[in-house]
């Protein structure tokens, strides 16, 4: 049992200091998780707080069957799904089966990041999510499978496909960048439909 699981069990027994340590450990990763997928600092912060609220409310039912990391990201993924549905309903574009899994319109980040996002947005949603969980959240294959509810072999094969696709998507951009012309966010938006 890792330190996180011990902390979670201590929190379950009533220690707020254990919660404090968990909060400190996971606040930044969770914020980054939401920010990369939604692009809004305010919503990312709100959903980070929502995740902790959900953890607090569900702590009595917590059993150390999986890692705490998986537990947190599973909750975060559910909240993210709800948020995307809410956004889609607000914009009136939700169709059956559409979960609104698109990366945000604009982050205001430097160009290099824009290229990566542009390549990411071209990936199939599940593959993109698997890739992002692996690269940014540093989850293992088993943890990704747990969070997304898919078999480990699927995670592995989809991850490979997504990396191959990402390489392909990044190559033309690299050529563009190597040629000396760097697109601004507006041009990139038109080009990559971000």
């Amino acid at each position, binding site marked *: 049992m890792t*330190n996180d699981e*011990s*902390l979670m*069990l*201590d929190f*379950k*027994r*009533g*220690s*707020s*200091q*254990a*919660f*404090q*340590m968990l*909060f*400190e450990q996971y*606040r*930044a990763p969770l*914020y*980054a998780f939401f*920010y*990369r997928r939604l692009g809004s*600092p305010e919503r990312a*912060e709100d959903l*980070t*707080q*929502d995740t*902790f*609220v959900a953890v*607090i*409310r569900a*702590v*009595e039912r917590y059993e150390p069957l999986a890692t705490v990391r998986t537990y947190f990201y599973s909750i975060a993924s559910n909240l993210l799904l709800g948020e995307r549905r809410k956004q889609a309903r607000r914009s009136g574009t939700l169709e059956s089966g559409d979960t609104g899994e698109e990366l945000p319109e604009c982050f205001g*980040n430097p160009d*290099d*990041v824009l*290229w*990566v*996002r542009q390549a*990411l947005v071209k990936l199939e949603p599940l593959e993109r999510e698997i*890739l992002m969980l*692996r*690269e*940014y959240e540093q989850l*293992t*294959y088993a943890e990704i499978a747990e969070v997304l509810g898919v078999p480990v072999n699927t995670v*592995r*094969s989809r*991850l*490979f496909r997504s*990396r191959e696709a*990402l*390489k392909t998507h*990044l190559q033309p951009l690299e050529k563009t960048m190597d040629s000396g012309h760097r697109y601004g966010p507006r041009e990139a938006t038109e080009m990559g439909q971000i």
Partner: protein
Amino acid sequence: MNQEMKQGAHRFPPEQLMAYLDGELPREEMESVAAHLEDCVRCQMLAVEFSEASAKMQAWRVDAPQILVSPRVAEALRTSLEKPAAQPGFGQALLKLVTLQWIQPVYVRPVAFGAAAVAAFAVFVLSPRLVLHRQSIAPAERAEIALPAPAQMADRSSERATSLEQPGILYDRPAPAVAGTPYQPSSATSTSVVTESEALSSTERPAAPALSATSRMLVRTGRLVVTTKQFDQARDGVNLTLARYQGYFGVLRVNAPPGAGRILEATLRVPTDRLDAALADLKRLGHVDSESMSGDEVSQQYVDLVARLANARKTEQRLNDLILTRTGKISDVLEVERYRSETRGEIERMEAERKNLENQVQFSTLQLTINEEYKAALPGAPSSSGNELWNAAVRGYTRLVNSILAVSTTILAVGPALLLWCVVLGIPIYWARKRWLQGKAH
């Protein structure tokens, strides 16, 4: 077999190679893939491609703001901790207590008698008084331990966020000590008696970066000196290790002094969470001559920097507001402009410092030196007789040609003058000698 692999007959599919790079293979497969990777150039290239794609993705970094516990979380925490603790195994403990399993068999009978007597005394004598006493003091106790209502907290809290380290938020109920945890659970007395005023004062405190004060930021640096016989393989191994752990070269220098082994000196930047694994791989490149690691904690420095940065930003905002909303003398406006410019410069300098600090924390620095074991060749090794004869013949021919050339050039150079002098001096000498011989004959 190596030739086969180089020609493209791979034993491992690329997907398995990817799993290897991600550290997701069983140990036995890891070893075989690692061995294959050392020989197969195509797989090495594929590994580098994977690493490059990952490195590109890592360019998208998110700087998380100073997130503190919001009132919602604090309220949920308070509500959660106010509930009775769900003690694991409580039922079993109660059963054990009731069935007197905790008493040694020898003492069962006397203890049972004693307990029965105490119970009878409690039931028939003390019980009514205890009930009365509890009824009389309960409201007071409840008032003392009452926590502020959510509405009160929300109303009185002017801050958006509340630090968990503030005393009023430690709503701990008695919790059993857990071995191995790095903190000490609060005692029942100190945590359950949290007055409303304490809770209020806690919410009125400024939202200081309290949470980050306990986070440890370490700048890790290390030095490794390795000696190896297979220098080229070791160098490839360094490249491969960097690709595997998504590190990069800070500096790379290779020296090949005459009469000594080659020396590779490199500064490697490796993600801190992968430093130990990378170091373990690098140590396998040869014999480790020396190894050292150090870590500097920069948490306080970072917290100070972030606080100073926030203050500078607020100052800049105030100056902007001042310029936009106030009017005054030109000299005053220019003075404010100058001060704003200085503040902007200070902000940018601190931003750079913060990013540099974060980079140092995220990427550890490893000074690597790889020395090649040098085996000196014996000087002046004897050559074969044939070679010597051939060399002598060449030398003789060369000397012959040179001497002929020398004589020829000498004759050509001196001959005309010599001939002239022979004619000039020879004719008088000839006549003189002829007359001397005639005189001698007479």
